[in-house]
């Protein structure tokens, strides 16, 4: 196994603990936005798609990269925008008066 891969495995394990710690504190009220926000975060894989599409030297690789960029970008942009739309609506009793019916 390459050094980089071993390093990757370490990062994987540590990030897993961080993930469980952070996410266990999210109350069930926010579970739908949480799912949607993490859904947007895994769109980070579009980064790999950019490398493929930008470095492609054959039509096949270029096509694969292009499709992957389109899908990945839709995942990222759609995911963050829809989460923001949802969270915008969460407000407390005190600050909802001015915006009623909106």
């Amino acid at each position, binding site marked *: 196994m*390459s050094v980089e891969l071993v390093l990757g495995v370490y990062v994987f394990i540590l990030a897993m603990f961080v993930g469980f710690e952070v996410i266990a504190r999210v109350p069930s009220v926010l579970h739908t936005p949480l799912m*949607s926000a993490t859904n947007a975060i895994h769109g980070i894989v579009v980064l790999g798609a950019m490398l493929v599409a930008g470095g492609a030297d054959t039509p096949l690789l270029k096509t694969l990269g292009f499709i992957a*960029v389109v899908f990945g970008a839709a995942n990222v942009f759609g995911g963050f925008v829809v989460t923001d739309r949802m969270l915008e609506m*969460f*407000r407390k009793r005190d600050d909802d008066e001015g915006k009623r*019916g909106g």
Partner: protein
Amino acid sequence: MTMRANAVADLRSSAIAASYIVAAVLFIFGLKRLSSPATARQGNRLAAAGMTLALVATLLDRQIVSFWTIAIGMAIGAAIGTYFARTVQMTAMPQMVALFNGMGGATAALVSVAEYLRLARNGADAGAGEEISIVLGTIIGAVSFTGSLVAFGKLQEILSGKPLQFPLQKALNGFLLAAIALLGFVIVAGTGETAALWALFATALLLGAMFVLPIGGGDMPVVISILNSLTGLAAALTGFVLHNQMLVVAGVLVGASGTLLTLLMSNAMNRSVANVLFGAFGSGLVAGSGTADDTPRSIRQTTAEDTAIALAYARSVVIVPGYGLAVAEAQHTVRELATDLEKRGVSVKYAIHPVAGRMPGHMNVLLAEANVPYDQLLEMEQVNGEFAQTDVVLVVGANDVVNPAARDDPSSPIYGMPILDVDKARNIIVLKRSMGHGFAGIENALFHHEKTRMLFGDARKSLTEVGQSLKSA
């Protein structure tokens, strides 16, 4: 000159690396901020900022020689994603998440495939660890893609929500799994087996669809959560292939989140994850004692006028929303009714079951959309003790989550699932479209309870009528 070029290249890769580290930290802080409704929106924006930074930094990568493919692809993807995100109804949120999740899965699989093709063409030996990551990334990404599409189809009701079962289904899935294992072995053991990789990709696509088809529509939230964590895992695996630790961090965070939510949801239904995935729950074959009972049981119907009077003269009302509320888009009507009741001095609260709706926390989003303040929403543990002092419980399109059989009848298929104890309240009014069954396909004793009155019809229409009668009550 060469030294200068080296220095520039070094600076460039340092800048990329630093940006990736900051991005990973922003993802973690963003998720941390999601733990309270007051800071959640900021959290999501922090994560989005991390994403922007990471994507911009990637453009500096020397591997990228042509920007046009990226620019056009990004523009198209962003336009599609933003359009759907802006226009989707809040009630359709579960299928929206499924769709975006599928796209992420497809991206991960395509990146893995492309990376293998590139390595094979250059004749470079990827190393066993990288090859295993490519194989797993392809499989998991592809399964997540078609699985999410089927889940989307079921939730959008393009496909039937009923579990699709056919003879030899398990044998077929077993065969697909064996084929995938064999192909994976061939790829890792050999060098440049591009045909095997394409076959692996195709088989995994088929497996994803086959895996979700036999699962009932009511279990789709759990499925989406699992697929979400799978896509996260696939993204982390591409991080192994590309030697990008930030991808690993982001992917694993998502994987951890999806895993936790999956466990939480199956606990809330008192079922194991395996039972959800392989139990074909809700296929109509379950025979609980409720259905076996042949004594005809009476129900008591009520009218909108009587409901209005019962609510108007109550001191405390608890509203229990369920999927029926989402289907009827009745969140605004229910909020208006609650506001009118509060003006009359009635205390109104909402009781939210963890699996009400089609996604954990789905009801919270819908009620937030209707401007219901989140401190008025009570979780199951908070509210269960209060039902005995509640004058009227208004059940709007909820079924299995208020079925007392889950608490009292050991022969019921949902026995052991924690429920809202609405039958302890003084009066119960159930708004329902018809006497149809819930996701679990079983009879609900609550509807036959002597304290229960049924108000049949579309939830929004019924609530509007109740609201009108309330004005003259």
